[in-house]
């Protein structure tokens, strides 16, 4: 009997040690990656990053055109993805709940959520870049929008699902029409969560590189022309990191830090906003 108990306690302790060791290993990896990023990124950080253009080989410069290009691409993508995603999420929770069509769309949306992002690049290449005959900012934004839409749909639906039905019923009882109930009751109650979803989808597409490789491509010069190839941080980082020039590699690290800090800021803001909204209730 004693031997059995001892064996059971031993295997329990053994499993515990393994589980804690695994957790420590993963946290150590995270710390390693973050400290590399912070060290390399800050060593290359300088104010001229925001004022100078990306340099030709062997010269120093900044990231101004890539930063502006990235803002433009992500902004246009969200301009399209936000209404489409919110309306689709509205259908799933407000109109189609429980129907066969809604569950199919939800299923497809969940699959799209995890689809390899490079496929979005190929898809947009086929339908926009190839027919128009040139890489363009529009194509880059379209590829990013394809990735952002499922994120917005998902969070919108989840957040609308949290709105208690009694609130909708109260509005219906006053004679409000369906669209009125959705706009003035459901959206109002869920707006903080929905905003969070939009911020998170921006965070999701801000660092995407693969879908931009064959759509927006890159551009060494200042350009805000969406009809031709446009500079952007992710592709710039990819090209500069793969090159042997130390100046270029330093710029790539600075860009990488910039993107990660942006993503981090977005997730912190959405977290804080969501928490303060929860405390109000």
């Amino acid at each position, binding site marked *: 009997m004693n031997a059995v108990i001892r064996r059971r306690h031993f295997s329990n302790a053994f499993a515990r040690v393994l589980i804690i060791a695994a957790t420590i290993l993963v946290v150590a990896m995270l710390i390693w990656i973050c400290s590399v990023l912070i060290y390399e990124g800050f060593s290359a950080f300088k104010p001229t990053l925001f004022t100078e253009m990306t340099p030709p080989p062997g010269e120093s410069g900044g990231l101004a055109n890539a930063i502006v290009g990235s803002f433009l691409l992500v902004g246009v993508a969200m301009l399209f993805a936000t*209404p489409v995603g919110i309306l*689709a999420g509205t259908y799933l929770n407000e109109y189609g709940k429980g129907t066969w069509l809604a569950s199919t769309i939800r299923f497809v949306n969940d699959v799209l959520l*995890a*689809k390899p992002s490079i496929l979005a690049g190929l898809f947009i290449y086929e339908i926009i870049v190839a027919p128009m005959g040139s890489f363009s900012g529009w194509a880059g934004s379209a590829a990013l929008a394809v990735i952002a839409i499922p994120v917005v749909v998902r969070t919108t639906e989840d957040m609308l699902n949290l709105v208690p039905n009694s609130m909708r019923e109260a509005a219906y009882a006053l004679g*409000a029409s369906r669209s009125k109930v959705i706009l003035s009751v459901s959206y109002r109650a869920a707006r903080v969560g929905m905003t969070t979803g939009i911020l998170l989808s921006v965070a999701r597409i801000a660092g995407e590189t*693969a879908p931009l490789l064959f759509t927006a491509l890159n551009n060494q010069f200042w350009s805000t022309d969406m009809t031709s190839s446009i500079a952007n941080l992710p592709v710039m980082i990819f090209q500069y*990191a793969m090159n042997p020039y130390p100046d270029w590699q330093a710029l790539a690290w600075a860009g990488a830090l910039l993107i*990660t800090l942006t993503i981090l800021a977005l997730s912190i803001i959405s977290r804080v906003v969501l928490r303060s909204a929860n405390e109000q209730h």
Partner: protein
Amino acid sequence: MTLVENSNTKAHEEAAGSFQRSPRFMNGEAFNSTFKWLSIGSALFILVILGGFFVSLTVGAWPALSKFGLSFIWTSTWNPVTEQFGALPAIAGTLITSGIAIIIAVPLAFAIAIYITQLAPRWLRHPLGIAIELLAAIPSIIYGMWGLFFFAPIFAEFIQAPVIDAFENVPFLSTIFAGPAIGIGMATAGIVLAIMILPFIASVMRDVIDTVPKRLKESGYAIGATDWEVTRAIIIPHCKTAMTGAIFLGLGRALGETMAVTFIIGNANRITAAIFAPGNTIASTIANEFQEAYSSIHSSSLIALGLLLFIITFIVLAVARMMLNRISS
């Protein structure tokens, strides 16, 4: 607020009809149905995106598929110069790297999920959850740079070289653990992939473990079971299907991960059992060659690779979803 204002105006007179009037550019009825149809249209757009993926990739892949036929899938030559294209090297590389990633990531993710939900002191649970989320939020390209410049050299010196030496005279294993000890290659890609997909698997597993009813666990503890026995005999059986779903979700990510792999896999279009050797995955081949594909058959073959990746990941992710949906319903 708005509701109250509205109902104050003429609600009584129009009790039977619609009093909707705030969007002045349209009457209430028209706005109501426009809004509904806009919602339905946006929702259908999701299906259009999926259909668009499939149709556009099939159209783009058609020249290659009609030239090489189905044998495209099991042909092992990929040679842009002679314009001979077969997908087997890329498929093999994708399966090997994803396999390595899953083998490493699943136990680690499971351990973290168990630690956060069962073992960790309460104050540590939240920060650990954030750490895992942070790991998921780092862009793929940064994993690539870290993998190439920092992980690969250390991996070559402290893992690859000793492992190759250790298995040198062991039959079978000497062909698996072989290749140049230069840090980059399929094993490196698999390990970095493991770190990247781990947070996704871990966070789904954590949610799944949270669905285990408390009384099941408590009845285990009540009869004197240890933590590990509760995990093994109650949590795992209860969550088996959904946990498999979580693993498939991670697999779906690993199969199509592009930038990190492109940095560290070494880009060689050949098939080998040696995991330290350079290779290529479907995604890394596309990322590397698409812009430089000058012949139309070359770019069409790359799109055919994309179509294959689309079909494989669709199946894997659909299976994952079905397994995960079973627990929520």
